[in-house]
């Protein structure tokens, strides 16, 4: 029983970690509280639904397709919403406002097209028995893929583009003076963040279906992971996500499951109040405002 909860916690943690990773990437490189991540999650879910259930694409192709759609949405948000604000040095609150607006528009459009009921994606999901524990295929996918993605990102940050992104995250003006294309960095980071999110979306949509208002809650879990793990430290976000997922899952042992969000929020609040820089602390601390 406890082992089962542990596995569930790992899976949940991987989900939070990946969503949070994308959010944290944009927060770090683009210096933007990317509330629009909720829009990306929402649209990616519907893209997966359309590609696999309506068009009958095979699962891997459908996930890749939804990742591509997600990246496109992310790029659109950066181009239409964030970039104009950045160009005129808008106060931080404006980024929230346009993201809220975008969320409303996106949600309305999706609801108009698909209706308000949740849509479920039918992807073959066999369950395997491993030493007395039941584990589903999509759970295995999450636990395996998450560290792989982390590794891939670590490699990315060693490429030219990755180093450029780190430079922009550190100091955009200085990066620009040495010839780094900041705009490209902003777009690349938001597109990577959005594409990565397609994987947890796949899991969430096969388990709970997608609906027009699911985006914010999914995104919020990622936000929690990012703040617990520590902005500016990508591995930290990963650990933050795992910590949240495990504590939520293991808490079911003692607390009725409806209160899970309270447990996760409790962990978050502890970190925000007593260790705002997160588990791994930030080399970006005072840069926040």
């Amino acid at each position, binding site marked *: 029983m406890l082992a089962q909860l542990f596995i569930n916690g790992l899976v949940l943690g991987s989900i939070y970690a990946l969503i949070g990773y994308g959010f944290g990437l944009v927060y770090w490189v683009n210096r933007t*509280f990317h509330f629009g991540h909720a829009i990306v999650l929402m649209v990616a879910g519907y893209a997966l639904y359309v590609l696999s259930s309506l068009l009958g694409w095979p699962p891997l192709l459908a996930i890749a397709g939804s990742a591509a759609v997600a990246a496109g949405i992310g790029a659109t948000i950066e181009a239409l919403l964030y970039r104009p604000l950045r160009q005129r040095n808008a106060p931080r609150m404006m980024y929230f406002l346009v993201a809220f607006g975008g969320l409303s528009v996106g*949600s*309305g459009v999706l609801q108009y097209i698909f209706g308000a009921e949740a849509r479920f994606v039918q992807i073959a999901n066999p369950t395997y028995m491993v030493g007395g524990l039941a584990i589903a295929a999509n759970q295995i996918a999450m636990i395996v893929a998450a560290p792989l993605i982390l590794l891939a990102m670590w490699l990315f940050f060693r490429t030219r583009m990755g180093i450029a992104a780190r430079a922009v995250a550190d100091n955009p003006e200085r990066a620009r003076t040495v010839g780094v294309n900041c705009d490209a960095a902003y777009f690349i980071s938001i597109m990577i963040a959005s594409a990565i999110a397609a994987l947890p979306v796949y899991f969430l949509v096969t388990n709970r279906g997608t609906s*027009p208002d699911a985006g914010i809650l999914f995104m919020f879990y990622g936000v929690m992971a990012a703040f617990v793990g520590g902005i500016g430290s990508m591995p930290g976000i990963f650990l933050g996500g795992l910590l949240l997922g495990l504590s939520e899952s293991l808490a079911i042992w003692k607390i009725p499951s409806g209160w899970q*969000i*309270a447990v996760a929020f409790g962990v978050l609040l502890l970190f925000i109040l007593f260790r705002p820089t997160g588990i791994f602390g930030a080399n970006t601390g005072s840069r926040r405002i």
Partner: protein
Amino acid sequence: MSAYIATILVFVGIFAVLAWTYDLLLGAAGIFSVAHIAFYGIGAYCVALLMLEASFPFIPALLVGLILNGIIAAMLGYMTTRLVGDYLVVATLGLHYVVVDGILPNWQSLTGGFFGLFGIPQPGILGWQVRTPWEFAALTGIAAVLVGLLFFQLDRSRFGLALKAIRDDEISAAALGYPVAALKTAAFTISSSVVVVASAIYASFIGYIDPPTFDITLVILIIAMVVVGGSGTILGPLCGAIILVGLPDLIVFLSRSSTEAVGPLRQVFYGLALIGFALFRPSGIVPAKLPKWRITLADRN
């Protein structure tokens, strides 16, 4: 037929109160919280439970709810003082989910769980039984006027000016001796408790509340009203409420269109309005004016 117009007026009034109370936080004090709807919900459940289970009349239930919200907000006010900007958004967002997705649906013995509370009685105020939509519109109108006057006075008072000083430059305000933490907590408390006026009217007008009533998207609507209408005045958020709530309702009523397309189209409308104003006219339709004494000083030079 005309009852629908009355219903529109009631909702405009409810949302005006929500917008005014929110503007005190965001516009005057500069506190960007998204927990407003959580307090709206707590107030509604409080009033509804008192009226249903304890046979409280309307006004006493409203007052108790107001005090309860005030106490909770005062305790949580610590958050608004310790946390800045992004952290505050995250914390208040979490607060919203803990209340609306955690406490309200799961504390079934108190709140009726996912099924909510129904059969909330209509107000009886000193012998006046409020029954018809037009009577509710009258009640809402009176309440809105009172709340509007309250916030008008607050805005121009020394309290309001102190809040704006904190909003503009917290460190300087603290250096000048303003009790920043106390002032912010006070703003949070007043804002979150007066919300109960809106909660009470909604609860007894519709007669039914459940956790999904207090969805996070309502927060976006209220923020849109403040941004579109214009922060910092009384007329501004009222305009926002009229344009974003009254106008769509009126159009639906007049065109008698089918209701399926309405919900999503309204969301698109809110979203586009919010984006448009945020990008091109952040001050809103009714911009805040400089207080007279600042103009005089400029004239003198």
